[in-house]
């Protein structure tokens, strides 16, 4: 009977997974439409490199 | 067991094979003679009172300025059963350093020893597969030694701008291929 149990478990977990992916069809998407919307970079962000030429001592 | 007790137990068993012991410091260590390390390791693992079943780390350190200059292999041991740690060290001559392997005792030492061989040139006698591990197989030399000098060439390629290249660049020749222009930046300054 473990065979039947296995088959049933395989089938039912597939259904559980399908239910989750199905629900996600209706969830609000997290995509950021980049060039149209931009997120506000936090003030400490180091995303953009910059250099002040006057202050640069050319150490490296 | 604390470090002194561990050392005493090892000293009992191996006598003058344990060359030195430092009890002070953050992590006390004992120095083992190179030829005895395999036996010491096997004992440290099999002895029920010590039961060092885990080799946490195997490192090599180069001390060229010490007197006499030496290499050190450092074994950081840990016992899952007793939850105590200990440090074994082996002092080796800098040239043609070799010592027995401990991979039969702690299989994890296999890769650690390969790494020490790769980067320091220390030969582990009896190691099952002593090849380079991190560096390419055709690399020459052992870069983590303190007397290591960067080579100018690797497989016929310049790996750093040589003086001849600098001269050619000064003469206005474009060196390098494509976007990888290795023209020294100071050329413009001197002009």
């Amino acid at each position: 009977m473990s065979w039947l149990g296995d088959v049933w478990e395989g089938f039912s977990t597939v259904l559980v997974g399908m239910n989750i992916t199905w629900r996600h069809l209706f969830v609000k998407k997290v995509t950021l439409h980049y060039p149209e919307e931009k997120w506000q970079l936090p003030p400490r962000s180091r995303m953009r490199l910059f250099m002040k030429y006057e202050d640069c001592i050319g150490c490296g | 067991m604390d470090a002194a007790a561990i050392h005493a137990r090892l000293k009992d068993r191996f006598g003058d094979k344990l060359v030195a012991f430092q009890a002070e410091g953050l992590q006390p260590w004992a120095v083992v003679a190179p030829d005895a390390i395999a036996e010491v390791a096997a004992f440290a693992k099999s002895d029920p009172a010590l039961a060092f079943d885990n080799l946490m780390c195997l490192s090599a350190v180069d001390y060229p300025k010490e007197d006499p200059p030496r290499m050190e292999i450092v074994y950081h041991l840990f016992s899952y059963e007793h939850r105590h740690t200990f440090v074994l060290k082996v002092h080796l001559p800098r040239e043609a350093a070799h010592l027995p392997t401990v991979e039969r005792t702690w299989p994890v030492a296999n890769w650690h020893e390969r790494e020490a061989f790769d980067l320091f040139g220390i030969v582990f006698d009896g190691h099952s597969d002593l090849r380079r591990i991190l560096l390419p197989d055709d690399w020459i030399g052992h870069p983590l030694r303190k007397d290591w000098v960067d080579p100018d060439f690797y497989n016929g390629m310049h790996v750093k701008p040589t003086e001849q290249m600098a001269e050619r660049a000064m003469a206005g020749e474009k060196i390098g291929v494509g976007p990888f222009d290795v023209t020294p930046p100071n050329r413009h300054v001197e002009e």
Partner: protein
Amino acid sequence: MDLVFKLLPEAVPYWLRVGLAGAVCAVVLITLMALGPIAYVYVETKLAGFMQDRIGPKRVGPHGLLQTVADALKLMFKEAIYPAGADKMLFILAPCLVVIGAFLSFVVLPFGSHLQTVDLNVGLFYVIAVSSISTVGLIMAGWASNNKYALFGAMRSAAQIVSYEIPAVMVVLTVVTLVGSLSLQDIVRGQQGGLPHWFLFRYFPLMPVAFLIFFTAGLAECNRTPFDIPEAESELVAGFHTEYSGFFFAMFFLAEYTEMFVVSVVASVLFLGGWWAPVPVLQEIPLGDISIGLGPLWLVAKAWFLVFVMMWLRWTLPRLRVDQLMYVAWKVLLPIAMVLVVAVGGLVLWRPTANGFPWDRWVGWPLTSVLFAYLAYMIVAAQRWSRRRAREMAA
């Protein structure tokens, strides 16, 4: 084909009429087949995106509608690279064979009561036989590529398709027992009379299981997750088409999606009533003395629903291993299929008129209604869940 044949004037010589009719059908089918995947790929990318909380393609055309067109064009204009040491002849022949294999099944698919190229009396047999041709193509591709991964993929696909043919054919037998004919058109006609007369709802616990088995085996035959081991991208890079690029790669793609559609159509013909509407009223739109038949639309809708389920499964499930795949085929699907064949055969012998079997009236309709009610509930529940979740997160 008969339709086109009859439209041509009598004066045209017979062989020319046959030839012309065939050509017209071929052109129509090839167009259908080539354009279909463009739609499926778009749907699949969008669906994958939605299931993963993102939106999928959106740049090319409105809502990314032209994305697949652009992809197809790109693939067509890309250079086809022949790997060194490849058997060039086989290398080119392989994708052609795969596409031909997928395409040939179209010939007998009944899209409507008369919309069928040829109504072969061994139609079902033909579909099953022809769909195996693509295996030869896959093995060819794997061998010709001179790549170990491709070879692995080819070997796996051979083993897989050969094994999954058997349970598929077994459960097809149950349908054939009910109808007593191998012609697809006859099979569809045998399901006349709305939902509960579809073979899916006959002999309540038996035929739904048969459908599931057929669908599973179909999934395996078109190499879709969870049975996509021939191309398992995390194991075999891309399996048999590792070395393919440009248009040849596009052909494999085309064949895969076409095969998905073919399997879905066959499944809906066998179990979901083919071109019959779920409720007889919806079969055609009466417009005075003529009426517009909706049969093809119903069939395509059913097939697309199954294609959707295939995609849904693909983005839900992990992949099986080779030995587990064989386990599923030989130790799960095949025994059940055999039991089904015997049981259905016995029932048919016991009560020869399948439609008169009392279970259908008492179980078929309630079951169908429950099923559809549950589907509707699922949609509502999912929407409610997502709204509640959004509200909770905002708090």
